[in-house]
């Protein structure tokens, strides 16, 4: 019944939107071509932008997880293959470096009535992107399992480890923890998250030289190693997607995962409704008594390509305004943690909101962070499996980063 209602409302909304498209978007003519990553929240935005299509306005989209690899070449051509690129904290960097983004100040002044000040991404005073959602990793926990064993919701990594030990000792679960420790991007993301929780910086002040082989780095690695002791032996191959079915099988009590995945964990149509009901979220654990959640804050947003006609740019901006309009977001408030006006945090947004409230730090938005992220991801696996020391792993990561940064021209 509930689904039927939902479907009816959705169809009604679609019909309404389609019927009133021209009037609602008010775009005279132009071509809107959207490139984005491929997940629920971005589908919501792109689908709404598509309703602006009319006899004189074309709207096309390409939503692919390969977006990061094609965005620079696609926006370099003149005219650019795409007029809009949806990007995140890290993926805007290559576009900024190559100067492929159009400043949006005039567009915001004219058509951005619904955009709030904190949605504007400014570089050197100019608006380069509009953010519409936030994302961060945080703690997922099973309140029934914790309650039954008299465990309070863990606030710090020390408490997470103590809780895991307690569950193991009580014979409830041998391996109650999971986190995306797959070498490469995922493992590095976990390191970056936890490292941010130490309050440390990744680079020596004002330079591109990495500064992770220090006390903070070692502490982070030791914590991650301790966490892995409570994970299944295959933990080294698990990414975010691999963890969800194990969670749904009821084999996990605590996990650190992405806020953007939280909605799916507690969705009404979850394959394991009992577990979905008892899945709760909280801020990422703190480390070393610093009180900062070990999570990087990310934003997702969009940019308008530089190499396109002003007409297409205007059409694209206005179509995207429809995509992230408060009405559309209101209709899909479960899909993400939105930054849009009028959005109120839902049950799935608790974790990210808690991260922000407790002072989590943003993912570093510097041009060479991607190189460090890669170097970290490629060099921690041996430590995680006990084949080398934390210092050696950090030295290897630093060396790999330095070599790559030299080749990319960031270190001379």
């Amino acid at each position, binding site marked *: 019944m509930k689904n039927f209602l939902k479907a009816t409302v959705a169809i009604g909304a679609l019909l309404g939107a389609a019927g009133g498209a021209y009037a609602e978007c008010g775009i005279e003519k132009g071509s809107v071509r959207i490139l984005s990553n491929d997940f629920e929240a971005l589908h919501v935005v792109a689908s709404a932008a598509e309703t602006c299509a009319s006899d004189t306005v074309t709207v096309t989209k390409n939503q692919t997880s390969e977006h990061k690899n094609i965005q620079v070449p696609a926006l370099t051509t003149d005219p650019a293959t795409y007029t809009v690129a949806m990007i995140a904290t890290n*993926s805007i960097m290559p576009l900024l470096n190559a100067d492929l983004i159009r400043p949006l100040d005039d567009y915001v002044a004219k058509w951005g009535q619904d955009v709030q000040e904190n949605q504007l991404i400014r570089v050197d005073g100019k608006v380069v992107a509009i953010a519409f959602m936030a994302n961060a990793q945080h703690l997922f926990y099973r309140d029934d399992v914790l309650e039954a064993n008299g465990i309070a919701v863990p606030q710090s990594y020390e408490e997470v480890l103590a809780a895991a030990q307690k569950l193991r000792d009580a014979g409830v679960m041998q391996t109650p923890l999971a986190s995306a420790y797959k070498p490469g991007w995922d493992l590095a993301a976990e390191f970056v998250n936890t490292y941010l929780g130490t309050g440390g910086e990744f680079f020596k002040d004002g330079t591109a030289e990495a500064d992770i082989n220090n006390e903070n780095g070692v502490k982070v690695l030791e914590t991650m190693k301790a966490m892995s002791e409570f994970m*299944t032996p295959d933990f080294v191959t698990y990414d975010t997607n691999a963890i969800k079915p194990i969670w749904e099988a009821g084999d996990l009590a605590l996990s650190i995962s992405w806020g953007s995945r939280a909605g799916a964990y507690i969705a009404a149509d979850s394959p394991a409704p009992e577990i979905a009901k008892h899945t709760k979220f909280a801020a990422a654990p703190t480390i070393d008594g610093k009180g900062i959640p070990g999570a990087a804050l990310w*934003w997702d947003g969009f940019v308008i390509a530089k190499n396109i006609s002003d007409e297409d740019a205007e059409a694209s901006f206005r179509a995207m305004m429809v995509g992230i309009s408060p009405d559309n977001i209101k209709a899909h408030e479960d899909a993400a943690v939105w930054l849009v006006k009028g959005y109120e945090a839902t049950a799935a947004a608790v974790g990210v909101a808690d991260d922000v409230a407790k002072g989590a730090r943003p993912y570093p*938005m510097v041009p060479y962070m991607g190189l460090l992220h890669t170097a970290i991801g490629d060099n921690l696996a041996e430590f995680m499996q006990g084949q080398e020391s934390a210092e050696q792993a950090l030295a290897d990561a630093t060396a790999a980063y330095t070599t790559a940064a030299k*080749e990319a021209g*960031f270190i001379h």
Partner: protein
Amino acid sequence: MPHRTFLAFIWPSLLAMILFIAVPIVSVGYQSLYVEHPQVMTEVESCGPFGCKAELRVDADAMRTLRAESPAGRYNGFSTYANASHLAFRNIGEIWRQSDSLGQFASLVMNLPFYKALVFTIAYTFIVTPLVIVLGFFIAVAVNAIPSAYKGPVIFFSLLPMIVTPLIGALVLFWMIDARGVIGATLQQIVGDPQLSLKASPALTWATLFVYGVWHNAPFSFVVFYAGLQTVPRDTLESAMVDGASRWERIRYVTIPYLMPLATFIALMQLMDNFRVFEPIIGFSAAANATSLSYLIYSDLRSGDFPLYGSAAASSMLTILGVVILLTPVLIRTWRDFKRKA
């Protein structure tokens, strides 16, 4: 054949080879000598949903001028080949001075990304290739001996591993060896160790990849040998039978010598194929324990925000060099045979 006629026949494929093989290799070689221009960076204020911060940014205008002057990048000579991500001469020197024993030296060298990948690549090539040849040969002999009514279906099933897309085949096995998968869980039962993981331990990951390699490649060698078996001269086999040779002796003294050129052909193809092992590493998410030269190229181009073209080009050139060194003995042998016949 007169040289003129030979040339008339060969020029279309020669042209294609120059266009699609030689020119790209030369261009990759050229690229490997260059790296990105030094980035001109300025500190600017940048703001977002989570606050403002003064951060370094690339000065796009200044970079454009630099790129217009020299589009290939900054000339770096052979430094990319020598750096820590490739041949790492300086690191090896340091390691040599630091280490007390050969064992320690070897383990420290294995910690350098290029050598780590090279060792796995070589191990994979030299373990999988002979096993594929031997296994393929025995499958062919066995299939050749079964009644002709069953031959069709048996050949079809023997070929399946080769028909399956490599990445899909790897993924299927990957899930089967998971601690919760059919093979992984069974092995845990048999060994009696709930912590046993085929994915976590380096030795078991290597073994898994080797097994996968043999499983995937054996059908190729089987097909070639099976075709060869059909042409083994019957009268030689029969006269061997008359002389009282057993089944094994017939295989040993008639079939194997007769099929030797085919074995050389398979060895050649397999050495080349296995040296650029790549898909199983992705399919098995094995990068933590096993990387190959091809994987290094992939990782240079795909991970991170900037493709490291120079580094990937250098790895490619080193891979080509590796293939050449590997094939030299086989090619010399073929050349000698050719001269002897001439």
